[in-house]
Structure formats: structure tokens, C-alpha cells
């Protein structure tokens, strides 16, 4: 115990509501944070981790109350104050001055009407009484520190002019500008793309060691913990289930829940199996697949330039196989899924073929209405958001029998029977059939969505980021379920994801997309063991793993994460002149200039 603790929280309890309906969401949490160290609070949604962070700063929502506990902050001179006992004006001086917070959603945490410089300078003016030229100088230094390429431009930029990563940097600058003793970061990188997340995490780590501040990192991602934290607090349903130094917890977890969390964290297997070479028996394939959206019409007849969401994509999905399409937001991966399903019409010239169990080849791109309906029976979809993909007005039974009703299958009793079977198939009790979707958790709802997709006994399922809205442990369960169903029912999957590690165990083949094009496509084994394209390498390097010995390789991320113009030869390109795909080994295609 060389260092005195900076913050000690003892027996913190928080209640929502009052009287008989009160719900205790944080139950007696203890934590100790030493100066210069970082602590991660890990938990899934509803575990009380964010409430704990907010309670320390006393910025809880109106309905919540701190019912017990102390939070003792030790000052530079060894003076101790209990944050929960302070008057509101004195608390305001501490907020932003000695303890700063970084929120999850940078867009809604920054005022859209003020420039970034203005907002950062305000914190400085309030807490350090520095304004004018000196304030500006300090702000610009901070901007440079948090990695803005052009601090002057950042000073006068509005939040909407910045990308997600830069906005989060602006938030970090705002938190850092007063040199706080403690920064509480609430899922600071969850809203960011993987490669941006890696860079922001690295920035936070450098700032922390550089300035000697302490940090509380609230996250659901053990990979982030492994890379960032000295000690960990695992929370579940408002209680601490395990706490201790990161290395101990990650290598020797004591509680069953922690073990489940670590087991659930997606990682790239050491040795990959799976087929090599070309697809032998394709079920769905597309060539020359492009989609151009007309520009938005603004005012009288003015039209913005058309947006090319997908360009010249060529993919093949093998029967009984899983093709994963991976890319960051805006890469066109979901558009590809919608085009393959004919939820949208592709640009003319595209060829989409489907060959079902009956061996008959159909042209999906030019199908008639009636044939399209028959096609829909054989190819189904599972959406990303389990909350909006189930109609709140229908019971689970109605939801599961609807596809059968639409296609006029079975009698009422048979449909009911089928719905019960489906519930069991996805691991839910048929007793839940009469319930309504809002009663279920996210994972259960996603299981219901999968059951609905299975109702028509399809041959193929398109999964559009089915796990990205779920907690990590639930994600693992859903992936296991999908894997089991594939084997049991001989399904083929098109699996859309923004995270390469998530698909590593499920995919037979992977296509990596960037800016509407495929940059690399290969059997999973080849792609993970021998990635060639700098962007693929960056994606693999950027995903944090729950392993303290394998930290992020930022050099690799930096090489491939930028725009195509910054990619090294022979991969880089300007404008729309992307180099074609070249086959470098059987079945492994890379976009590069020959």
C-alpha cells in the first residue's frame, strides 16, 4: 500500500423510485481506486455499472436516490471529502474540475449549437478560471494531445462536422482540459467502429499514464478491460460478484458468472477449421451487385450526388455454409443483405441466383411477385434490433404463427403445435407462447426472432447483425444456438457483422467490406491466418481480446484503418478506382493492383 487511495466508495446503494415500488439497483458496492491507476467496472446491461459511475458524480436520473454509502475523495494535500455529503455548489466545483466524465454517445453529449472549442473552453473557464487567449492556448494544446490532426480546425468545428471518433476525442479533450484527478468513462468506445475504438482506447491509455490521473472505465467488454485496467470489478444485478487485479481475474476467475463472461467473449480461435478453396455447391450467389441511391432532393429541384452504397460485389454462399460479411458502419454490408433478399432492387445488370434443395436455379433479381413469395419461404432474415423487430401488439404465438398464416400452411391447431416446437428449438419454454414480446429480455427476444425465421422451414437465413444489440454472454448463447440449428436443419447463413471476432467461430467464409466494396474474401481459415489486405489486418488487430498478454497492435490498426487513399501500395486507391480482386491462393481474393 504505497499509494493512498484517491477514491474510496463504501457500501454504495442506489434505489429507483420510492416507497413500496422502490427497486434497489446498486446494492452495497465497495471500490477503491488508487492515484494513477485505472479500475474497470464490468457488467451487462442492467447490472448497475453505469448507475454506480453516475452516483459517484451525483448525476443520477431524477427517480434514483443514493440510499446508503460514502464516496471519499482524497485531495492532493491528503484532505478527505465525502462526495455524498457535499453541498450542490461544492459538488459542481468537483464535477468537471476534479472528476470528469466521458459519456457513451458523443453526439448527444455535445451541444450541437456551440463549437467544440467553445464547449471545451467553458469547462476551463468554470473550473480553472482561465479564459481568453490563455484558455484558447490550453484548449489547443489539449486538442493536439488527444490527437486532433488540426487543433485550430477542431477549435472552430461544430460537433456534427466531426466523425464519431473525432467527436469522442472532443469529449475526451473536454474531460481532460482541467487536468482532473479522476475520469469516469462510461462505455466510451461502444458507439465507435472497431478500428476507431482501438485508437481511442490507446489514446486514453496514453493520456492516463502521461498525466498520472486515475480512471474508472465502465464497460461490458472484457477485451477493453484487458487492455486498459489495473483492477476489475465485476457487477451483476447491482452487486459486486468479483473484484481484484485484472491479471488475476482474467486468468483465474473465481465466480461462475465471471467465468461465463470470459468464456463468452468472442475470440479468434488458435487453430481454425473449415473448408478451403472454392464453394462447391452454391445456394445463393450474386454478381455485379451494385446499389446506387439517388441524392437527397433539397429545396427546389436541387439534388445531391447519388450515393453508391454497394459497388460490384460478387459473393457466393455455399449450401450448409456460413458466409460472413464484415465491415464497419456504412460499408454497405446490410445493403448487400437486403439486395440478396430482394427487399430492395439492385442496380440493373446485377445477377442474383438461388438454387434450393429442389436443384432448380432461379434468378432472384428478376423474379415475379408470386415466385418471390415462394422464395421468401426458403430464405428468411433475423434482424439486428430484437426490440423493434417484434410487433408489440402480437403475442409470441401470433408472431410465430404469422409466417404460416401468410403462406396458408396448416390448420390452426397445427400452427399452434408448430409454434410450440419452434419455441423449444430455440431454447425457450413453450409455456411462454401466450406472453407478449416486451416481457422478454433482449436475448430471449432474439431467440423468438430466430424462431420466427425458422417457422417456414427455410433453407437459408440472413442474419443482419443478430447479436450486436445483445450482451456478451447472451451473444455467445445466440451464436451457439445458430451453430446448433445450422447443423440440425442443414441451414446456410449469410451473417452480417461489424466484428470479425464474432464471426470467427461461425463462418466458413468471410468477406470484408469497406466503402461498398469487398476488399478481401477468403475461407475463414485463410483469412484469419493469412490476412493480406491492410484493412483486414487492422480489423483483426483492433478487436480487443480478454487476454492481458495480447494487447492491441496499434501500428497494424493505423496502417489499415484510414481511408483507401492512405493504404499502402498496392492496395490504396483514389476515388472510385478500386483495384480488382485477385486470387492469391485458392479461394482467397484480395483487392489490390496486380
Amino acid at each position, binding site marked *: 500500500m504505497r499509494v493512498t*487511495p484517491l477514491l*474510496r466508495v*463504501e*457500501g454504495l446503494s442506489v434505489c429507483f423510485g420510492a416507497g413500496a415500488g422502490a427497486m434497489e439497483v446498486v446494492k452495497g458496492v*465497495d*471500490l*477503491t481506486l*488508487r492515484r494513477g*491507476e485505472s479500475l474497470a467496472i464490468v457488467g451487462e446491461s442492467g447490472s448497475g455499472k453505469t448507475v454506480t459511475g453516475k452516483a459517484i458524480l451525483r448525476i443520477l436520473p431524477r427517480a434514483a436516490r443514493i440510499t446508503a454509502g460514502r464516496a471519499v475523495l482524497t485531495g492532493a494535500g491528503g484532505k478527505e471529502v465525502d462526495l455524498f455529503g457535499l453541498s450542490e455548489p461544492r459538488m459542481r466545483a468537483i464535477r468537471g474540475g476534479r472528476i470528469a466524465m466521458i459519456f457513451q454517445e458523443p453526439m448527444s453529449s455535445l451541444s450541437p449549437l456551440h463549437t467544440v472549442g467553445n464547449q471545451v473552453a467553458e469547462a476551463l473557464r468554470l473550473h480553472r478560471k482561465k479564459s481568453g487567449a490563455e484558455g484558447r492556448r490550453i484548449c489547443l494544446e489539449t486538442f493536439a494531445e488527444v490527437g486532433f490532426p488540426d487543433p485550430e480546425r477542431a477549435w472552430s468545428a461544430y460537433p456534427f462536422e466531426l466523425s464519431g471518433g473525432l467527436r469522442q476525442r472532443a469529449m475526451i479533450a473536454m474531460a481532460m482540459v482541467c487536468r482532473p484527478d479522476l475520469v469516469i468513462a462510461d462505455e466510451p468506445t461502444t458507439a465507435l467502429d472497431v478500428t476507431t475504438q482501438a485508437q481511442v482506447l490507446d489514446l486514453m491509455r496514453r493520456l492516463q499514464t502521461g498525466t498520472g490521473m486515475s480512471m474508472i472505465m465502465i464497460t461490458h467488454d472484457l477485451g477493453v478491460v484487458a487492455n486498459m485496467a489495473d*483492477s476489475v470489478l465485476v457487477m*451483476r444485478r447491482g*452487486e*459486486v*460478484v*468479483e*473484484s*481484484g*487485479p485484472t491479471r488475476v481475474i482474467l486468468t*483465474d476467475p*473465481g*465466480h*461462475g*458468472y465471471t467465468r*461465463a463472461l470470459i468464456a463468452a467473449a468472442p475470440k479468434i480461435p488458435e487453430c481454425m477449421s473449415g473448408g478451403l478453396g472454392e464453394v462447391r455447391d452454391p445456394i445463393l450467389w450474386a454478381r455485379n451487385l451494385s446499389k446506387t441511391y439517388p441524392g437527397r432532393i433539397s429545396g427546389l429541384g436541387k439534388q445531391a450526388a447519388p450515393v453508391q452504397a454497394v459497388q460490384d460485389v460478387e459473393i457466393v454462399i455455399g449450401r450448409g455454409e456460413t458466409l460472413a460479411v464484415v465491415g464497419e458502419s456504412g460499408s454497405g454490408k446490410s445493403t448487400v443483405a437486403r439486395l440478396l*433478399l430482394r*427487399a430492395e432492387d439492385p442496380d440493373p445488370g446485377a445477377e442474383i441466383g438461388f438454387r434450393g434443395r429442389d436443384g432448380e436455379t432461379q434468378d432472384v433479381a428478376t423474379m415475379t411477385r408470386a415466385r*418471390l*413469395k*415462394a422464395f*421468401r*419461404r426458403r430464405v*428468411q*432474415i433475423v*434482424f*439486428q*434490433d430484437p426490440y*423493434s*423487430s417484434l*410487433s*408489440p*401488439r402480437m*403475442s409470441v404465438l401470433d408472431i410465430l404463427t*404469422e*409466417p404460416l398464416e*401468410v*403462406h396458408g400452411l396448416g390448420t390452426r391447431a397445427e400452427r399452434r403445435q408448430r409454434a410450440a416446437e419452434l419455441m423449444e428449438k430455440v*431454447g*425457450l*419454454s413453450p409455456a*411462454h407462447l401466450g406472453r*407478449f414480446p*416486451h*416481457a*422478454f*429480455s433482449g*436475448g*430471449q427476444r432474439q431467440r423468438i*426472432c430466430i424462431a*420466427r425465421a425458422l417457422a417456414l422451414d427455410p433453407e437459408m437465413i440472413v442474419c443482419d447483425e443478430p447479436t450486436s444489440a445483445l450482451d456478451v454472454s447472451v451473444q455467445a*448463447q445466440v451464436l451457439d444456438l445458430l451453430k446448433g440449428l445450422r447443423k440440425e436443419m442443414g441451414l446456410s447463413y449469410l451473417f452480417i457483422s461489424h466484428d470479425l471476432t464474432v464471426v470467427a467461430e461461425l463462418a466458413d467464409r468471410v468477406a470484408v467490406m469497406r466503402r461498398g466494396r469487398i476488399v478481401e474474401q477468403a475461407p475463414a481459415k485463410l483469412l484469419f491466418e493469412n490476412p493480406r489486405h491492410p484493412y483486414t489486418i487492422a480489423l483483426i488487430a483492433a478487436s480487443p481480446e480478454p487476454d492481458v498478454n495480447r494487447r492491441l497492435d496499434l501500428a497494424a490498426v493505423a496502417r489499415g484503418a484510414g481511408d483507401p487513399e492512405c493504404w499502402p501500395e498496392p492496395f490504396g486507391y483514389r476515388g472510385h478506382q478500386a483495384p480488382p480482386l485477385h486470387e492469391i491462393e485458392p479461394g482467397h481474393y484480395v483487392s489490390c493492383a496486380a
Partner: protein
Amino acid sequence: MAPHDPDAHYVSDSPYDPEAERQLIERKDLDYATWVLVWRRFLKNRLAVLSGIFLLAIYIQLPFIDFLSPYSHTVRDDDHLNAPPQPVGIFDGGFIVTYPMTETLDMQTLQRVYTADYDNPQPLRWFASCGAPYSFLGIWESDNHLVCPPEGGTFYPFGTDRLGRDMLSRLMHSARLSLTIGLIGVAISFAIGMVVGGIAGYFGGWVDAIVQRAIEVIRSLPELPIWLALSAAIPAHWGPEAVFFVISIILGLLDWPGLARAVRSKFLALREEEYVRAAELMGASTARIIAAHMMPNFMSHLVASATLSIPAMILGETALSFLGLGLRPPAVSWGLMLNDALTLGQGAITITPWVLWPLAPVILVVLAYNFLGDGIRDALDPYS
């Protein structure tokens, strides 16, 4: 408690069973059909419930007004012109009694002065026959009333108008037209709004653009002059029923743009919902998607908007009739009663203020509709 040691490895002994967790129902409180949740949330809003009960009560009365009111709305009493509210007593030789009023003319101001004779209480008659027979619900003739004026006496608790007609009975009879005109008008604007808004929302593109521009033009027209122009075009020889329907159509015709916009925006929003996309991708027909997935979700919103637009209709009718361009006598509505007050000029306020009674039900009904509509609207999203 010992101070927390950050280097110690603490493991809680709480149990963890992932298998049980999978079946656990997270939000039992939300496990009901949407309408049940909406209804429960609505019941929590006391003001809205009270308004709803109030409106329900007065609408249920409408068919029985002839029975409930002591007089017919047309019967005149030449001895009681512009009589003030008649004093009413309780348990003074009867359950409820009235005191007869005698009229004298003040020779200085030439005003009629009514003095009540408190020594001569006259008990009201209950469930008695009085006045001219009326047709009860068009089924049978009757002259039975809930309450009849005393034998040889009068019962004017709200006073009489300048023709000596009972204000209370006229207020009650007025409710029929004044309250139903709002419903009919909203039904018309609902129908137009649904169709036009639905078309705009479903087809989108240039159809949507045309509808939107048309709505903007209609909304930019000043309402009152249009009403006046349209109602002035009703032929003078048409009967009161025909005029009633034309007026309600006029009100409905000018009100639909708001509803059409609500329908359209809800339509567009729902089309993006993933459960609608899921239905599309399972091969459901457009008709099925609209009927099974979109309608239930936006009908409730429309009911709220419609409830909120009924008061505007009632006020519109009142304004038109007040200006003498709406309904025509012998029909009776609150607006028409106020029109009578208009003919009295300033005297309406200084000498015979009781002719302004129709303002009370108008204000109450409009407020009740607004509270009810707000209550429905707030209850619509029970999941937030």
C-alpha cells in the same frame, strides 16, 4: 467493515445459473396486450378518466333529453320573458320546491322586475306528465318527464330567454346538435384524412409531394372566412337537418389536413419498423401488412388526434351559429343560443346575464375533450 483492499481477490458467493436465466421473464409487468397496458396507464391519469366519464355521461343522456328536460325547447311562456333564474328550495314543504315569481314593470327603467314569493313554495312533480307530447326515440309518443314544473307553477332554475323559453331545457336540447356535430365532422375528416394520408404515406414520391403541398395550401387559408363563404352558400329553404349535415361536412372538410399529416407521418415511421420489414420478407401481402401490423399501431394514435380535434369542431359550430351562419332556428344549439344573446347586445351581460349560460357547457365539453385526448395520447406508449 474493513477498508476495501484493491489488491485482494474478492469473490462473492451469489449463485449463478445460466440455464434458469434463459427462461427468466424479465418484465412481467409488460406481459399484457398493448391495449391492457394503455388502459392501465390511462386509468392513472385522474383528470382524463374524470373527463371521459363526464363526456360519456352526457353522450348517454342525448337520446333521453326529451324525457330528462322539464320543458320542450320551443315552448314559450309569455308571462316570463327574460326571467332571471328562479329560486329553488329544498325540503320546504316538498323535496324540491320552486317559489313563484311575479312580474312587474319598473316604470323608470322600463325593465321587467321579477320578485319571488318565498311564502308560497310549490313542490316539483317527479315522473309526471306535462307539456306537449314528444316522440320518444321515434318509437312511441309520450308526455312523461323526469321532472315537471309544479301544478300551475314554473320551473326556470336557469332563467328564460327573450321569448320566455326555459334556458335549462334549451341547454339540454342544444347538446344534441352541438355534441353530435363534432362527432360527424371528425368522422368525415377522419375518413378523408386516413385515405389521403395513407395514400401519401404509402406511395410516397411525387404523390406524397402533391398531397403535402395541397395540405399546406389548405392550412394557409383563413378558416373563418371559408366557413362563412361555404355556409352562406347553403340554400335558405333547406330544413334544419339538411343544414346540420352540410355544416358538419363543412367542418370536416376543413379539418382533415391535420389528421392526414398524422396518418402519413405515422405510416412512414411504421414502414421503417423492423417487424414490418420482417413481415414483408416473410412474403406477407401489402394489405396484410397494413391491416395486421400498421393499422393497430397507428389507429390508437389517430384516436388520440381525433379526440383532440373534436373540440375544434364544437367551437367551429358554436362560432358559425353565433354569427348566424350555422344552424338555423327552430334547431337549437349552444351557438344559436348565444346568437340570441347577440341580439340583446350589451344588455346580455348587464341586464340578462343568464342568457350567456351556453358558454358553460361549451367550455366544460371542450376542456373535457382536451383532457381526455391528452390522457389517451400520453397512455399510448406504455413501454417507455
